[in-house]
């Protein structure tokens, strides 16, 4: 049982019902870039007929990912479209023909015999994205860096550490998100394959499952843990204590290791950390199946139906809302991601991309607007909750007074923008907003 005492307790109940399968969308919008990196190059043109899983965008280099059609139909255009991060991106628009025809599956392969480079090639080829604050191609994250990290190299030795532990998070980045806990409670055929592939690629001899203490893990998971051919253990954590589900606090809570901040990577402390959702995508990708569907959490008081939804990538949020029976109340805020770290949307035509954890429509009584915030009253509640041990209140004073260099010295870039300080602040100071502003100012100069 791991321990995590920082952060805040947030509500978030696991639904007792199964995942809802959203109906096939009539039209999907597939941005050629659904991660941080280079966009893919479109390999189809207007008027082409495509099948589900067919390659429509080719990766340019290791920072870009190939893109596959997620419905069968006709390419009606390659046009600029808004994504949920607010960027206008060239996107392939496909209109469904009604028949959900797939391309020929590449045939069953003996995945045990795949070598690590082959596995990486398949993960890259399927276009798997590692979700998170900065979504990147999963294969890029799995590859060891060419150069040791500069701040680590200062100590004089090369510290690209060998990964000894594979941490599989069956808890969610935010308590309001449900997908990983849902997956931990239901058996999945791709799970053993995904774990085997990740172990092979990372070279980790130990696998640790981190489960929520309130979720009962599926029999499949307990069997994997009990099957003692190799070292597999399970740790349970209080998943309601946000932000324990984020990689950096998770590694600390589960293994007691601290990723060097800022700019550190779990690899620097010998850990590879991926959530169950990602492991399943890996399991599919090594069978040659690209992710065409994604599991997202739908929540917030304005939605008639809430829970885990299985949906085709590229479905527009407006289509999702309709297929779930619309709104029951007037939404004040629409968020992609979770309520703590997600992005507010103003246009419902944005598509669900590979990096989206969930969609939340919050009613007015669920959100708190900053409005007139007060001076910091120095109460220290933010210090109590900060998972990376900063003094957020003091930092915010520097940021609000444009003393960005001082803020940087005080550890601004170690901030993981979880929003705990913001949540507890009695003066309602927009701390995360101030930190992001300061980071941008510093990065631009």
């Amino acid at each position, binding site marked *: 049982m791991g321990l995590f005492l920082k952060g*805040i307790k947030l509500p978030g109940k696991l639904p007792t019902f199964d995942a809802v399968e959203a109906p096939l969308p009539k039209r999907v919008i597939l941005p050629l870039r659904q991660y941080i990196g280079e966009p893919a190059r479109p390999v189809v043109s207007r008027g082409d007929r495509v099948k589900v899983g067919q390659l429509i965008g080719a990766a340019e280099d290791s920072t870009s990912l190939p893109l596959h059609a997620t419905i069968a139909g006709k390419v009606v255009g390659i046009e600029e479209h808004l994504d949920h991060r607010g960027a206008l991106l060239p996107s392939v628009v496909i209109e469904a023909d009604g028949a959900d025809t797939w391309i020929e599956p590449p045939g069953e392969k003996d995945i045990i015999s795949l070598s690590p480079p082959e596995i990486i090639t398949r993960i890259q080829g399927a276009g798997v994205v590692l979700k998170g604050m900065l979504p990147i191609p999963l294969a890029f994250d799995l590859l060891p860096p060419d150069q040791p990290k500069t701040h680590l190299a200062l*100590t004089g030795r090369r510290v690209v550490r060998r990964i000894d532990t594979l941490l599989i998070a069956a808890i969610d980045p935010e308590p309001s998100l449900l997908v990983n806990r849902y997956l931990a409670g239901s058996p999945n055929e791709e799970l053993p394959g995904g774990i085997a592939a990740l172990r092979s690629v990372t070279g980790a001899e130990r696998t640790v499952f981190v489960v929520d203490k309130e979720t009962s893990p599926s029999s499949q998971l307990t069997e994997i843990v009990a099957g003692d051919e190799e070292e597999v253990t399970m740790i349970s954590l209080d998943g309601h204590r946000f932000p324990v589900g984020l990689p*950096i606090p998770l590694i*600390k809570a589960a293994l007691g290791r*601290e990723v*060097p*901040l800022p700019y*550190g990577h779990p690899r620097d*402390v010998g850990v590879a950390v991926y959530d169950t959702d990602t492991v399943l995508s890996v399991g599919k990708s090594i069978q040659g199946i690209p992710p065409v569907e994604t599991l997202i959490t739908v929540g917030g008081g304005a939605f008639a139906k809430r829970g885990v939804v299985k949906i085709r990538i590229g479905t527009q949020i*407006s289509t999702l809302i*309709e297929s779930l029976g*619309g709104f029951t109340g007037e939404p*004040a*805020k629409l*968020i992609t*991601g979770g*309520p*703590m*770290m*997600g*992005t*507010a*949307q*103003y*246009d*419902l*035509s944005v598509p669900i991309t590979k990096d989206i954890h969930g969609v*939340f429509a*919050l009613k007015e009584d669920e*959100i*708190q*607007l*900053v409005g007139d915030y*007060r*001076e*910091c*009253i*120095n*109460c*220290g509640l933010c*210090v109590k909750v900060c*998972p*990376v*041990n*900063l*003094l957020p209140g*003091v930092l915010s004073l520097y940021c609000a007074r444009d003393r960005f260099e001082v803020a940087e010295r005080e*550890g601004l870039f*170690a901030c993981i923008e979880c*929003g705990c300080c*913001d*949540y*507890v*602040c*009695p*003066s*309602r100071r927009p701390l*995360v*907003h101030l930190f*992001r502003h300061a980071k941008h100012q510093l990065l631009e100069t």
Partner: protein
Amino acid sequence: MNKESPIDTTGLIVSMSPHIRGATTVERMMRTFLLCLLPAAVVGIYLFGMRALWIMALSVVTAVAFESLIEHLTHRPLTYRDCHAALIGLLLALILPPSVPWWIPVVGATVAIILGKMVFGGLGTYPFNPVLVAWVVLKLSWPERMSLFFAPHTTDELLTPLMAVKEDPALFYSYGMLPLFLGQKPGPIGTVCGLAILIGAIFILTKGIIRWHIPLSFLFGIALFSAILRYINPDIYPPVIFHLIAGGALFGAFFLAPEPVTSPVTPMGMLLFGFLAGVTTMIIRMWGGYPDGTFYAILIMNAATPLFNKLKPRPYGRRQHA
């Protein structure tokens, strides 16, 4: 861009994460703080009669009125709703002797609001606890009026236990600890009843408005210091429990020292702040010119708060560099 969508999206709010926030606000904090002072205030009225209520009312009303007046004159939004001025007024009244004439709380609350709070820019910016600033001004200006205490339920002048012990150290034998704790002693209106203070303290700690570090390390500092003295010579030094309950130590530990604006925020800083305030209290009690050093000690430590805040927690991930 959104013409085809049948769903009306106008009026969606866009702002930075986090999109949800906790229920704690400054207003709520101050109101809860006021509520936690209620037991001490009620017992004060019970022990010292309606004149105690009169002092509290004058102090609170003056504080709120002067704050509003200054905010009006300086064209700032009125902040009486956050109850901070009322809190200052009530805290000040609770540490005044019940014997004071009507103008002492009025002058005190005025000083607290103007010199203590508003000249620095209001809530959040002042370096010293405004209540203690006002108390010190009153104490220095009218020392004899500020050290005239009544026995409970009467208007008979009587020395407080700490004043008595200051004159004759051996007198501590004459005090029973239970009556001292329950408030059967002369003293400032709100600080005499340890039980009432502890009830409020449990509430304020469980509500998370103040953290345990400062009160407990403050009391620990007093306890440790008095235990050492007691060990050296039990004949002239009173027991630990006497020092904890005889004067303003309990009230100071829970309601004055952890005042958010003027106390440190880091765990180590808070522990050291409290401990040193406790030790300073004992030094003043033993060798200083005043019977009770609690309020002076806290005020002195307020000045060092920026230094205590330099005792930061180890930032996450720094150890790994070696």
